[in-house]
């Protein structure tokens, strides 16, 4: 059973990766932009988490503007700060246009990342980036809807968390639009975000 789920997840990831490659290869694939695509419908969905801006951030509160969302944790020495920095540089490059979308960093480590800790951590990055976290159940539910993988791995005196490093791009209706790969070229990222904001 677990094995089947794993195989299905990887198949979906492979399919997704293929779609992203095609979508960015310059070959026009009209069906990839179609919101009727079952694949697109399969990623994303309702969620509600505590926000570093106070109150909650949810699929409903984000409605009306596209958003970028990714999963991580502050005990991550490399990928998470680098992704946050890369995103901060891209937001700067976008200038005022950056306001036309939202950026959400979801901590999948509620045991160590309180909202206060997230707020402090994010103070080192672009203020557009909203920090969010919630109960283990709320996070597991969101990750499942986003087909994101995260797993806590215990070691002799603590734990690490393996997690999907991609940034998800969602349109103004909360539907899946595409992904940003880890350390993708900033020019490509800027172009993708502009396309997302243009609703293309």
């Amino acid at each position, binding site marked *: 059973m677990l094995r089947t789920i794993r195989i299905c997840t990887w198949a979906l990831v492979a399919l997704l990766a293929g779609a992203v490659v095609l979508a960015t290869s310059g070959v026009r694939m009209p069906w990839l932009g179609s919101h009727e695509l079952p694949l697109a419908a399969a990623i994303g969905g309702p969620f509600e988490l505590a926000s570093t801006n106070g109150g909650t951030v949810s699929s409903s509160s984000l409605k009306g503007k596209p958003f970028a969302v990714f999963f991580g944790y502050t*005990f991550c*020495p*490399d990928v998470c*700060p680098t992704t946050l920095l890369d995103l901060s540089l891209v937001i700067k490059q976008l200038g005022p246009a950056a306001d036309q979308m939202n950026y959400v960093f979801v901590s999948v480590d509620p045991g160590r990342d309180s909202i206060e800790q997230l707020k402090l951590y994010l103070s080192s*990055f672009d203020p557009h980036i909203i920090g969010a976290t919630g109960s283990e159940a709320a996070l597991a539910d969101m990750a499942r809807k986003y087909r994101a*993988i995260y797993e806590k791995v215990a070691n002799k005196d603590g734990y690490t968390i393996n997690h999907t490093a991609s940034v998800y791009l969602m349109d103004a209706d909360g539907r899946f639009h595409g992904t940003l790969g880890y350390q*993708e070229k*900033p020019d490509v990222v800027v172009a993708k975000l502009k396309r997302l904001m243009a609703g293309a």
Partner: protein
Amino acid sequence: MMTTGTKLRSAAAAMTLVLGGAVGWSAIGHAADAASADGTIKIVESWTRATPAGAQVAGGYLKITNSGSQPDRLIGGTLTIAGKVEVHEMSMTDGVMKMRPLEQGLEIKPGETVEFKPGGYHLMFIGLTAPVKTGDKPQGTLVFQRAGSLDVTFDAMAMGTMPAGHTHN
């Protein structure tokens, strides 16, 4: 390949230089190399990165060469500004970042040079007592099974610094 990212980073680094800090990793003189008492283990280019506010962890990067005739094993270390130091391995598989401590340490074969770098082997500094700022030089030790303990100084580079020769995906 000079991407906008590296340009941005170079620009940021240049700005830091103006402000009295360091410039990109490949361009500066670095912390003194370290060698074990028996001369078999040598450590060069030891560096770390500035951390975001409130960060509890940082990565440590370096190159280790075993010029001895026996395999040796990096089994641990210390850092004055961290509660503990672990040897970790990171990998990226199909977009999933995986990190695990190497509880038995890492073997360095005779004649081998192993580079610890972002995205691969790294030292995990855990329980930082203070944020790492660009230009800091945190000091510590690395302990090898055969060669014993070496004093190592890490150059703190700007956040997002990548080793020389790194290119974006």
